[in-house]
């Protein structure tokens, strides 16, 4: 059994404000399309069920014909224009979805916290850095990924964000720690 949670690692949850998001739907299985998106967004194109992070921007694989870009809010309208241009020869849809969803940052023993709500496998073997899941947390549909071994991001519908916040706030309670997954390495 792993050791109980150390003091240096108190779990907490916070709402992330001010990030822009754009939805891109296109035939991303085509090399030319994914390359065009990648070039325009300036982030490598993610593989299936993955997210790529580069210099403050992130690009996540949402489905076989959809991806989601994260970027500073002020760059959204310019990026939408750029993306339209980059995909001018392709059938596509680009939309500003910055207000559609709400993002949460969870810090601590995040695998233990996620596993209280998601049926998806969040073990270190299967859910590594760069993996992006669209699944469920508690009763809500949600997407989540890890930004390092002790931090995760969670995305849910705006209308359900208060519910998600309350759920996460309960799940991070130290007296309810499960300590199932190995203690993350603080030097990581």
């Amino acid at each position, binding site marked *: 059994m792993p050791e109980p949670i150390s003091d240096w690692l108190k779990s907490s949850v916070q709402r992330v404000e001010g990030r822009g998001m754009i939805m891109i739907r296109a035939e991303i299985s085509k090399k030319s399309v994914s390359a065009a998106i990648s070039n325009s967004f300036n982030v490598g194109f993610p593989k299936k069920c993955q997210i790529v992070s580069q210099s403050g921007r992130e690009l996540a694989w949402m489905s076989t014909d959809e991806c989601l870009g994260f970027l500073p809010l002020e760059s959204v309208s310019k990026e939408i224009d750029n993306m339209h241009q980059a995909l001018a020869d392709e059938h596509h849809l680009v939309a*500003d979805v910055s207000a559609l969803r709400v993002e949460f940052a969870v810090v601590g023993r995040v695998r233990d916290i996620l596993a209280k709500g998601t049926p998806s496998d969040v073990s270190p073997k299967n859910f590594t850095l760069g993996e992006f899941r669209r699944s469920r947390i508690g009763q809500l549909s949600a997407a989540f990924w890890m930004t390092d071994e002790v931090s995760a991001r969670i995305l849910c519908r705006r209308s359900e964000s208060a*519910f998600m916040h309350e759920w996460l706030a309960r799940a991070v309670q130290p007296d*309810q720690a499960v300590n199932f997954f190995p203690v993350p390495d603080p030097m990581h």
Partner: protein
Amino acid sequence: MSTRLVEGGRCIDRRQVVKFQFNGKQMSGFAGDSLASALLANDQHLIGRSFKYHRPRGLVASGPEEPNGLVTVGEGPSIEPNRQATMIELYEGLTASSQNHFPSLEWDVGAVADLASRFLPAGFYYKSFMRPRRAWEFLFEPMIRRAAGLGRLPRHQDESIYEHFYVHIDLLVVGGGVAGLTVAKAAADAGARVLIVEQMPHWGGRTSVDSGMIDGIDAAEWVNQLIDELASHQQVSMLNRTTAFGVYDHSYVLALERVEDHAPISGALRQRMWRMRPKCMVIATGAIERPLCFQDNDRPGVMLASGIRDYLKNFAISTGDRTVVALNNDDGYKTAMALAKAGLEVPVILDSRRPNDGDLTQQVRDLGIKIEFGRTVSSVNQSKGRIRSVRICSQVGEGATLHEVDCESLAVSGGWSPSAHLWSQGSGKLIWDEALSAFRPDLKRPPLQDDGSHNWAFTAGAASGCLPLDQTLDDACDVARAVFKRLALSGKIVRPEVEREKAEPPASTCLSPSGIKKKARAKAWVDFQNDVKVSDLDLALQEGYMSSEHAKRYTTLGMATDQGKLSNVNGLMIMAESRGVEMSEVSPTTFRPPYTPVTLGAIAGDARGSLFKPYRKTNIDEWHDKNGAYWERVGADWRRPFCYLKDGEKVREAVDREALRVRQTVGIFDSSSLGKIWVSGPDAGRFLDMLYTGVMSTLPIGRCRYGLMCNENGFLIDDGVVARIDETSFLCHTTTGGSDYIHGWMEDWLQCEWWNWKVYTANLTEQFAQIVVAGPEARKLLGKLNISDIDAASLPFMSWADRQVGAFKTRIFRVSFSGELSFEIALPADQGAELWRQIYAAGQEFDIEPYGTEALHVLRAEKGFVMIGEETDGTVTPQDLGLDWAVSKKKNDFLGKRGQKRPCLTHSDRWKFVGLETVEARAKLPVGALALGVGLDSHGFSKSIGRVTSSYHSPILNRTIALGLVENGPQRRGDILQFSTEAGPVNARIVSPVFYDPEGTQLNA
């Protein structure tokens, strides 16, 4: 008399005295006690009354198989009934009470049922309470429910916290005995991620209780060393107090962890449900001992041999100075030896088998204990609820007493059944093993995986039927090899060293004696918890219930909270014997989850209180809440203000006030939940022409059009305004309830039927807040906010434009669902509340009021606008609603076109849309009321020719207005119909559905 011995008890800490209460009596035990052992230490062997006959009942076993020791924990309103005393760990302040008795446990009037037992045989209520028929509901059933049953329901909400936890692991080991631990260690060393769950607080299972040597050291010490190793193993997680209770499809296993039950803290996490998907599962759940069936075998003081041994070795409990042991297999000898070694008397061992000289027999002889072979118990002699002596007879005979032996306690062992519940739940089959005299897992018919593979679940050790320690360990090593194969592991599997045992085969009867006579059969219990006796099974057979499944249901054998852990196999053996068939021809009943009872709280997990169900909230929700919102739950799980209540106001008054304000000056409405689906691509117009009944492809950029959607049958499913954004993009508004469904509907057609059309959709419902400003002063109010170009020429009715409103970039739609001058302002959802506040502030000089969904409905009904879900119910077409103008006649095709041509939908007798005006202006005409026709229909019922679909009080007209569907309605305008309502008949006149401003002058005010 049961008491605590001065020495021994491997699980208790004598330095820590723990006080508790049973039936209001103060008692004390030691830390480490179970409630059961602590009660025995206090000589409390009477624990409850039986289900049907209210017979006095005491403890039989020491673990989760216990059928009698059910108690209610807690007091007052926060109680928990039906908890097993054997599974409750003692803690300071524990309060428990016995169940199913009145007025007291010792003196119970219900016990007359025992005297009348010959009138209460199996299935008696199927036969006894036939006439008069109505009496069943009002008299018999309530009476029986009062007399029978276990425990009482708590009256208060459970304050404890529960949660779930999902894991995906390589190997789940159920059972922390030597077999499970051996497999776990091997697999973990080979690199597998292993989770071990153990239902008891202690590890090691039976082996830690029964002495023995493994690898040259004491077995209990060997287990402790292994536990230490596993506990520090990186690949291993261990959970004690955790019961794997259910195996489901796709190798889904549920377990209940009792986190705080052994030391409850108010408001802390009590139980955790583990939801597991192991690649591989090892069921090392041991075996369960069976009792013997003889006359009065349910008397307190008659216990399983293993139970007596557990109480003695774990808790230093003596169940009596003199214990007679009656058995038909080797294991009971261990109890006799343990008792003798503790200095207690074993007057005689009754071994129903022929004389034998197994290793254990010899060891018992060496201790000087007398053994009588071929003998058994015919009955017990008791007084004042205590055993005084046992009568001894020949096993093969009919029960003539050979002699009587005085004793206070009787240990019985009728053989061992592998605990194969999980195997069976997972669809694995059982097979009768003659040599073992038990059902054991049939290795040829194991639980199947969803992919048809069958090597994911294994039993190990006693659960496989390998009872002696040496066989258990052999089996564990075999299973470890199978697990290695399944998980593609490689590594060494070391078999621990143990001495070989020479075991004698058990006998295969539970009836004692074999020729037990009719009178004794009526007092010989098979199922203690459900009060099923040998005679009940006889009756079931006599009445033709041959199959074990039928007999189970007829007699209730094996039902209730213990699910027949002690009784199932004995029942089957008795039935097989009576029918004269071999046990191999009898199929056991299927085990179903849960293995042991699970609290509803654990199943609900965190879904309770404020997290019971998510309700979707708009960005402006907080403002509504602070301003008196009276909430309504609307389609797709939104909560929306029905109206806003002011001090002392009634709902109806608030709705009137809000609706009037919109007609007279201006109102503000949060329509953010309205579905907003972006449809884009070269084929978008063509796609929408197929989806909507009208033509959308011709809609000019900047304009809006009202559209209807039907399913393939031609029935209306949704409506809304479509806005053309650019050459290839449309924004389709749906109803609040339809946003997700219609988006799915669109994707369904795009992905499955028109996969080559170039259209993408995006559900942007939550991207935008949408604020409606409606009323004669709406334009003036928006002017205060310095919005340019919203005059009728720049922004005509049914158009949209992007406009800056102060700091906000918005898109304004000039559409109206109220019939008033109206602007719908959309902007990013996170800015909605701020703009709402600004409009509301600017609107003060126009006496602006927020209005809720009900005022919205009143306003639309006054204008005769239909509402999906009110006027439609899945059987209504656009033509029924007089919306023919919105159905294109030119288009080649659209969804529903062919459906609408079917004769039943074009029939002249269709009920059609009308307005209804009650003859008496203020009469109530409820929704759903039917209009009575003339004569009777083909079934002889009164003919109905229409129904009310919406009904409101219109404050502007100061009268009741209603909308409805009436046969040939539009042609019968002016007719008066009679509607049948709960309050009596109501007359209403058929009128135009447009009650207010039919010319539409307000719209362009």
